[in-house]
């Protein structure tokens, strides 16, 4: 039998234990048209029945930032490091929204596409990747809206907004954040198929994570060496939020913390892939 197996080149082998690290990239690439169609479907579906359509992409972070500016800036009088509150909050809300959306949406992909996945085979990773890409589209629209608003501040003379060479770090930050969120997203996606409660916990978890990160306050406000500082620095999104502020508002960058986040993102991606690959084989039986 072994001899026969050597002679025949099998294209598809279905067996119980498929190693998690063997992500079939060739197959993923073959399904790139599906990926693109799913991205398009995501984008079309979200705004199909709304009046303002894609404008919501821009309005959402703007309104959130405005709310933060009023509550935390005006009422609680938190430090904004001398930057107009609107810009200060928007520079953090835009990446945070991206991070939170990726996790929220990718974690739903298996459940949302359950009907499809129990009837037809395609590489399951296509679904969360498509969701991530479509979320990325909204992110870039929002990033552009930030730049536009910052430009308005500068042109009207309200604030001398500039960006320096650290802008080159922007793609790195975006990739890092995407990897981190994607890893956590597929991990949660895989786990929610077995433990449905996780879906509910996730909403609170992400909210908690936001308060544990410098979205509504600058990191410099938290005294170094304090227990709170330690907790906040433990959050891998802290360095990314701070990084975005540095790049977008021309503030100094904390490189050490960024290194920690890089390691964290790698681990989350590995863990996510491992669990996702493990669950996807029995997934159709569970839903």
């Amino acid at each position, binding site marked *: 039998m072994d001899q026969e197996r050597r002679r025949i080149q099998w*294209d598809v*082998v279905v*067996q*119980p234990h498929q190693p998690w690290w063997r992500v079939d990239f060739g197959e993923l690439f073959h399904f790139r048209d599906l990926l693109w*169609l799913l991205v398009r479907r995501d984008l079309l579906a979200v705004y199909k029945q709304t009046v303002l359509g894609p404008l919501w992409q821009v309005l959402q972070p703007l309104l959130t930032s405005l709310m933060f500016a009023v509550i935390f800036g005006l009422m609680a009088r938190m430090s904004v490091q001398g930057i107009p509150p609107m810009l200060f909050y928007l520079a953090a809300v835009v990446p945070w929204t991206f991070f939170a959306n990726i996790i929220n949406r990718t974690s739903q992909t298996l459940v949302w596409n359950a009907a*499809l996945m129990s009837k*037809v085979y395609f590489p399951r990773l296509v679904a969360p990747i498509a969701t991530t890409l479509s979320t990325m589209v909204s992110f870039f629209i929002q990033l552009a809206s930030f730049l536009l608003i910052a430009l308005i501040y500068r042109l009207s003379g309200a604030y001398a907004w500039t960006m320096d060479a650290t802008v080159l770090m922007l793609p790195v930050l975006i990739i890092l954040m995407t990897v981190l969120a994607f890893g956590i997203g597929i991990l949660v996606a895989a786990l929610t198929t077995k*433990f449905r409660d996780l879906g509910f916990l996730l909403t609170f978890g992400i909210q908690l994570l936001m308060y544990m990160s410098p979205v509504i306050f600058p990191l410099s406000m938290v005294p170094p060496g304090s227990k709170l500082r330690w907790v906040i620095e433990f959050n891998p999104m802290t360095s990314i939020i701070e990084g975005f502020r540095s790049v977008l508002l021309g503030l100094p960058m904390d490189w050490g913390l960024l290194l920690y986040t890089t390691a964290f993102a790698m681990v989350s991606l590995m863990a996510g892939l491992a669990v996702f690959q493990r669950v996807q084989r029995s997934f159709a039986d*569970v839903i």
Partner: protein
Amino acid sequence: MENTIIKVEDVRKRYRLGVIDRTLIADEVSAMMARLRGRKDPRMALGGPVEHQRMGDYFWSLRGVSFNVAQGEVLGLVGRNGAGKSTLLKLLSRITLPTVGRISMRGKVSSLLEVGTGFHPELTGLENIYLNGAIMGMRRQEIDRKLDEIVAFSGIEHHIGTPIKRYSSGMKVRLGFAVAAHLDPEILIVDEVLAVGDAEFQRKCLGSMRTVADSGRTIIFVSHSMVSVQSLCNRAIWLDKGLIRQDGATGQVIRDYLTEYSAQTHEQEWSEDEAPGTDEVGLLSVKAISEREDGAFWISDKIKIEIEVLNRTITNDDLNVRLQVRTNNDVLAFVSDMVETIGHASWSLGRSKITCVIPADLLNDGGYRIGVAFLHQGRHWYTMEDAITIEVQEGARTGTWFHKWQGALRPKVDWTR
């Protein structure tokens, strides 16, 4: 085998019984620890063939299935519900993985377990062709190339720009099969998709499957319609309780399968103490009696139904017995009352036998569930819905139509011209 294209080796599949999503983390962890230490998963049956389908909280849907399929073979899978046919199809189409064993395949595999999966209601027919094709692994250029053919095959050219949500289910089926029929896979796996759609379209689907088969591709086909299996497949596998019962030429396998199927269910008996019914009257037996030696029922046969009744108290003529015939899809084919045919007659106490004959050339091929009801002074007293089931076979095939005829019945209708 030189040209083996599918190789199934000792495939077993276990499902959990009951509520599945209430997994215990402890259970998962202990299974993982066992694996890490190189031992067997404690939840798995230890070595050897699994003796029973049910083991604790688990159910073995497949219990060790092995077979090879050569290129160009058209293989039909038959078996009763729960025999493991659907599980095997799911494994072959990679929707789920086996618990034990291995399946190896050569070439592009595509499966059609449900027509039109992945259609998006908001998108137009045209957009859905691309989406559906992409889900099944087709490249964009490939779809571009075959678009005209696909649209023509579906026969809905005029509605191709309309969102799918405005389509009738028949139109969706047409479109779904049109995409699937143009996939050009080396291996095509088809579940009972032909059961939907009108006769003309079914003929088209079956025809296109035959074209696929004739071009040297391999097909695995599941159907409850023995006629379809017989007319399409050159080999059949009979699955029974998760094991291969018989593997061979289609005609022989189907004959044996039908014979056993009818023998198992075409009669039922109860003792006097257990006779189901009311205090006044009970059912002792219901039997369908075949005219043939092998016990089969052909469309061209009369089917005699024998009902034995235990009468405990009734001495007048108020009791009526009713025969109910339903198809396997739960369509009531007809009912027939004893008193409507032979009139009222007074009953004597004790056992008595009633016989009725379903005329030849009335039932269609396929399964029927026969029920018996007692009526007293025109009111329902007791009904046994599925006392027995019978499987009616085509028998000798005449005419030009090679698929199951539509309809709950298939009476011989006199035509003149």
